[in-house]
């Protein structure tokens, strides 16, 4: 075992550090911010500028082919750059859905003309992408989506409603999946499109979450006209395209952000219980030890995954484990942080609640982390079926035409 970089990795890390120190400000203890908030227009402008800087220097699209402006590099380079970037004050990333997911999918499922048109503007941060996937009646069961795409001459006419779309209010383009044929079983009647968000009939509304912030949108599509040249892949191949896209998503390990072991440990050292530091209380220690073990376990699972990548292997189900464990851990830590404050636990005033009321905010956004990007329940199914080879769920709707599937009220 050896925690150091290979010579190639070390050389790349040095390159990344040189670029970052020349172009960004290093984080200090004072520069830490706790609150998660919705992106402002200023955030978006700064993000675009930073993306352009990175792309121009060759620090974006690490595994993209060179002909599209990428580096033709490795997944490890992307990981190393992210590790280094973490130490600098940089604008929030809003390009994962475009650079990380949409464009690789267009490159493998679309036409060369499509890839040529969209690659560089996405890479250089000029065009932001979002995903029009989930619907009010199609979440975990995405293939049950109802947005209709009807052929009209050289165009498609799209009607329906999409939901839980991050960044829709400032995106230029969307990856859209819609039902082109309701007379066949659900997975067969789907088609993928590239949608210009400025098209008439596209209406974006912000969703107010339980935390009061708005990170997501719902998108209404009314008689939206999409030229057939914007279709991605063959008619009826939408599910295949969606799977290609989600496979790209799995490369990015989903770890829920928010207060973690170090933060609750610090809080427990600062607070007093019965005249003693809370960290001396055995009930507190029991919780702390559990979260330490989970956090460390996830860290070393990540290192095992990086080892596999570093050796050119495809990592296994580690991303599902990280997402499943970290979301509940976040919720539990947030809840316990609030508990530790006793009578003042519910206070959200950033002046009095520790760390700008970080634990209180996390308590309110944590439920979403257990739902978005694969619910706890779906992740357990994935682990049971793909890793443990247990039988798949019964699917009562698999072989019947979509328009014959019973539908509830929601």
């Amino acid at each position, binding site marked *: *075992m050896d925690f150091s970089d290979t010579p190639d990795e070390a050389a790349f890390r040095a390159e990344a550090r040189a670029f970052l120190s020349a172009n960004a400000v290093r984080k200090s203890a004072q520069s830490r911010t706790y609150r998660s908030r919705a992106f402002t227009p200023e955030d978006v402008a700064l993000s675009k500028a930073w993306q352009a800087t990175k792309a121009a220097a060759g620090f974006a699209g690490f595994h993209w082919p060179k002909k599209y402006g990428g580096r033709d590099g490795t997944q490890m380079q992307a990981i190393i750059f992210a590790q280094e970037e973490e130490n600098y004050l940089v604008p929030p990333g809003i390009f994962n859905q475009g650079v990380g997911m949409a464009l690789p999918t267009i490159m493998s499922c679309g036409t060369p003309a499509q890839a040529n048109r969209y690659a560089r503007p996405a890479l250089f941060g000029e065009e932001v992408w979002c995903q029009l996937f989930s619907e009010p009646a199609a979440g975990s069961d995405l293939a049950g989506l109802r947005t209709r795409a009807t052929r009209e001459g050289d165009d498609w006419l799209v009607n329906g409603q999409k939901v839980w779309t991050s960044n829709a209010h400032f995106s230029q383009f969307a990856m859209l999946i819609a039902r082109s044929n309701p007379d066949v079983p659900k997975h067969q009647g789907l088609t993928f499109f590239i949608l210009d968000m400025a098209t008439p009939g596209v209406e974006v509304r912000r969703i107010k979450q339980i935390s009061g912030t708005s990170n997501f949108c719902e998108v209404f599509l009314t008689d939206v006209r999409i030229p057939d040249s914007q279709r991605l892949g063959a008619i009826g191949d939408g599910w295949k395209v969606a799977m290609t896209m989600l496979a790209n998503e799995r490369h990015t390990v989903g770890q829920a952000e928010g207060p973690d072991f170090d933060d609750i440990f610090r809080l427990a050292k600062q607070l007093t219980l019965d005249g003693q530091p809370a960290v001396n209380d055995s009930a507190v220690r*029991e919780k702390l*030890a559990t979260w330490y073990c989970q956090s460390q376990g996830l860290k*070393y699972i990540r290192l095992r995954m990086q*080892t596999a990548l*570093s050796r050119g292997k495809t990592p296994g189900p580690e991303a599902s484990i990280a997402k499943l464990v970290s979301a509940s851990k976040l919720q539990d830590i947030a809840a316990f942080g609030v508990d530790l404050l006793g009578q003042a636990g519910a206070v959200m005033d950033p002046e009095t609640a520790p760390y700008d009321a970080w634990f209180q905010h996390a308590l309110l956004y944590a439920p979403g982390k257990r739902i978005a990007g694969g619910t706890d329940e779906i992740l357990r199914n994935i682990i049971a079926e793909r890793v*443990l*080879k*247990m039988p798949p*769920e019964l699917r009562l709707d698999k072989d019947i035409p979509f328009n014959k599937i019973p539908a509830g009220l929601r």
Partner: protein
Amino acid sequence: MNFEFSEDVTAMRDEVNRFLTNRLPTGAVRHQIESGAMLDRELWQELAAMGWLGASIPEAYGGAGLGHETLCMIAEELGRALPFVPVSSSIFLASLAIQDYGSDAQKQAYLPGLADGSRIGAFALAEGNGDPAPESAGTSFAAGRLTGKKHPVFDGAAADFAVVAARNADGGTGLYIADLAAPAILREPLATFDLGRPAAVITFTGAAASPLPLAGDWSAIARLLDQAAILFAFEAVGGAQAALAMALDYAKSRYAFGRPIAALQAIKHKLADIYVAIELARSNAYFGAWALQADGPERPAAAAAARLSANDAFFEAAKENIQVHGGMGFTWESDCHLYYRRAKQLAGNLGSARYWRNRLIGRLLAQNETEAA
């Protein structure tokens, strides 16, 4: 970045796995523990002959000198197969104590026998209920003689000698080697629920013993417990993996309501959670293996995290394996109970979860102060 065991080390694991799988068909371990013996002596000699008992003992003392990472892999396989042999007492505790704290003469005298299986060592720390603590030793050492009562001493009846924790004339705690065939030593068997880990009460009434010269105080014992905790964690990971595999096999072949019970979400989600717990534990154990070899300041926290997560995963896997088997799992012949018993034996031997949580948090607090200073 290389956070995996080397190919040599994993090849060794595969070899141990193949050997134990062939050597111990279903029911073999159960028949051994039913026999009333103190260990499976035939298998013990076979493990010695393969060079596995002496894997981490230096070549100069009759071992294979392969290092601690190899020993971790062997521990995982032993945890999986549950052979009725005293490796944890003799190798993970007694041998490591002598390797680290013994004089050259003591190493010459004891290590070759431990490696070739001709001698079995035990570790005598506990004196009844409670966790390891400096002030807990009622046993004392003076003028070359031990006096006191140690229990439980796992594998104490089978052992030829014991490494004994006792208070010295200065009031500190040290480690002493006592040959158990010597006069003034009384050994009595002590019933335990883990039938594959028999225990004894050992009473010393002025028995001859020699100090391990480098085990000067309690910190040496705490350090030995850290090392053993990592190896025990690998045993627990192996046991947890075996219990999960048993549950999966059964769930896939047992039909109810017209389909395998493995198709039921209540079973799928239960076993998915156990898989996740095992992977977290395995990853902590891997870091433990690195820390065991590296012997740096990370080791105490790494040992505690490895042990706590492995024991939790093992007990969860063992108890839910019985549950998945239904009534069948509650029978003696199902063998499910062997893992259930071992999980709780491992969780107490070397101290309770409370002891290890305190050691972990205490260590993290101390690290924080060092960083702040």
